[in-house]
């Protein structure tokens, strides 16, 4: 249709008339309720965690994904009912579902802050503080009896303090890698790496053991260590990861914890901390 046949003012007038701004008080009140709900969640002491859960329970994916998930569960339920091996199949599905969900949550994280306690490293209790943000930057602070050191890792570069202390040097990751003393922290330097380890290395064997309200436990093995990960049941993000020596398992009473990692997720971290420097 030729533009001159229908002048623009007609179209604009028509569109503005059809999309006019006459929000009725009832609709306004109902929409205001949504803002209040979110604000109320944020104002509660436990608000931060709940607010991260908020999109999942109040909106995003609420209808479509839940509907699809329900349909899938119904079909799987029917399959399990008709087949003989109910428990094994259900168990596998449950494991798979949990691991995929945790992996997705890890891959969608925006910020990570975790503390790695590794009593065995260096022999005298070494701790690491790892911070990461979604554009790929990470910073690892190591505190040991020998002092504190920091490295900064970006996509291609690693930065560190020179032996003189103050001078920061950057080198391509291809040409240098952190020494063995940094290794305990390296597997937690990015959520995607943790997700990969959970899927491929930890050989998760058991899921669903409740450890308290709002959490559940998944367990696995890595070499000669037992791996236990406490997952937040609302965000599906890890809260605590522990590794134990396998030969000191529950039968002997106290288990020897080789590593404990505590995670905090999606709390904004200043970009200043990711800039290499004193």
């Amino acid at each position, binding site marked *: 249709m030729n533009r001159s046949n229908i002048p623009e003012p007609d179209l604009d007038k028509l569109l503005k008339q059809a999309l*006019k701004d006459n929000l009725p008080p009832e609709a306004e009140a109902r929409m205001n*309720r*949504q*803002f209040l709900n979110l604000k109320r969640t944020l104002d509660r002491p436990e608000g931060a965690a709940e607010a991260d859960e*908020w999109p999942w329970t109040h909106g995003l994916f609420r209808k479509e994904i839940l509907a699809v998930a329900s349909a899938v569960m119904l079909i799987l339920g029917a399959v399990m009912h008709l087949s003989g091996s109910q428990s094994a199949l259900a168990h596998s599905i449950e494991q798979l579902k949990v691991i995929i969900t945790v992996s997705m949550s890890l891959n969608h994280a*925006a910020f990570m802050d975790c503390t790695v306690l590794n009593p065995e490293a260096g022999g005298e209790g070494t701790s690491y503080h790892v911070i990461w943000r979604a554009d790929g930057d990470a910073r690892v602070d190591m505190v040991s009896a020998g002092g*504190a050191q920091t490295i900064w890792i970006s996509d291609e570069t690693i930065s560190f303090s*020179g032996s003189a202390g103050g001078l920061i040097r950057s080198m391509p990751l291809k040409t240098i890698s952190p020494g063995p003393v940094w290794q305990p922290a390296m597997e937690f330097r990015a959520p995607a790496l943790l997700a990969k380890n959970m899927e491929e290395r930890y050989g998760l064997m058991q899921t669903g053991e409740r450890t308290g309200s709002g959490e559940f436990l998944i367990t696995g093995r890595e070499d000669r260590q037992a791996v236990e990960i406490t997952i937040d049941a609302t965000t599906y993000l890890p809260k605590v990861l522990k590794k134990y020596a396998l030969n000191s398992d529950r039968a002997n009473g106290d288990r020897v914890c080789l590593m404990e990692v505590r995670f905090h997720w999606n709390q904004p*971290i200043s970009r200043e*901390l990711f800039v290499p420097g004193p």
Partner: protein
Amino acid sequence: MESATPLNAGLMESEEDLKSRRGSLVTDDRTIYDELIAPLEAKMMHSIWQVVRNADMAEDCLQDALAVVWKKRFQIRLHPNPKALILKICLNAAYDSLRRLGRMRRQTDLSPLDNAPAPPDHDADRDLEEREIAEQVQQAIRRLPRKRALAVMMWLIHEESFEAIALALDCSEITARIHISRGRAQLRKWLSHLCRSSRQEVRNE
């Protein structure tokens, strides 16, 4: 090379110093809400309403939009035009809602006016006509490709600049102009009969 094992040498900083430095630099969620969402509450509600024009749908849309905004709050804070991006998210939710409504109507074959409350007698014809026009405009908007629809709505409802629209849609300004131009051309084509009748009304008056 200054040292054979450069990573073992380092900055001497106590754990307490590190903790206190980080604590002061963390931004809490309430601050994010106050900075990002609070100033736009009214605009978010009005822009959703202008498109969906139904209280149930508007509430659902706002819920969806808030969920997306909250999930992407850190990216939004870093965006060059957070306001335009948030309003685009609202219009996106409204557009999704219109499309869902269209699908639902096709499946159930319900008239859009079946469930609407009856207007008062004296304004009955006028209200009915307005609602029919609004319905046809909504149908036309939901037929547009997503980016075209969003660009037209941002331009028309929010009167955003081409630059702001481009930033919100993550495209160049030229592309934003093309989206608007093509979107309007399509709307003109689909709504031509309404434009003619509106011209006729003016002539009769």
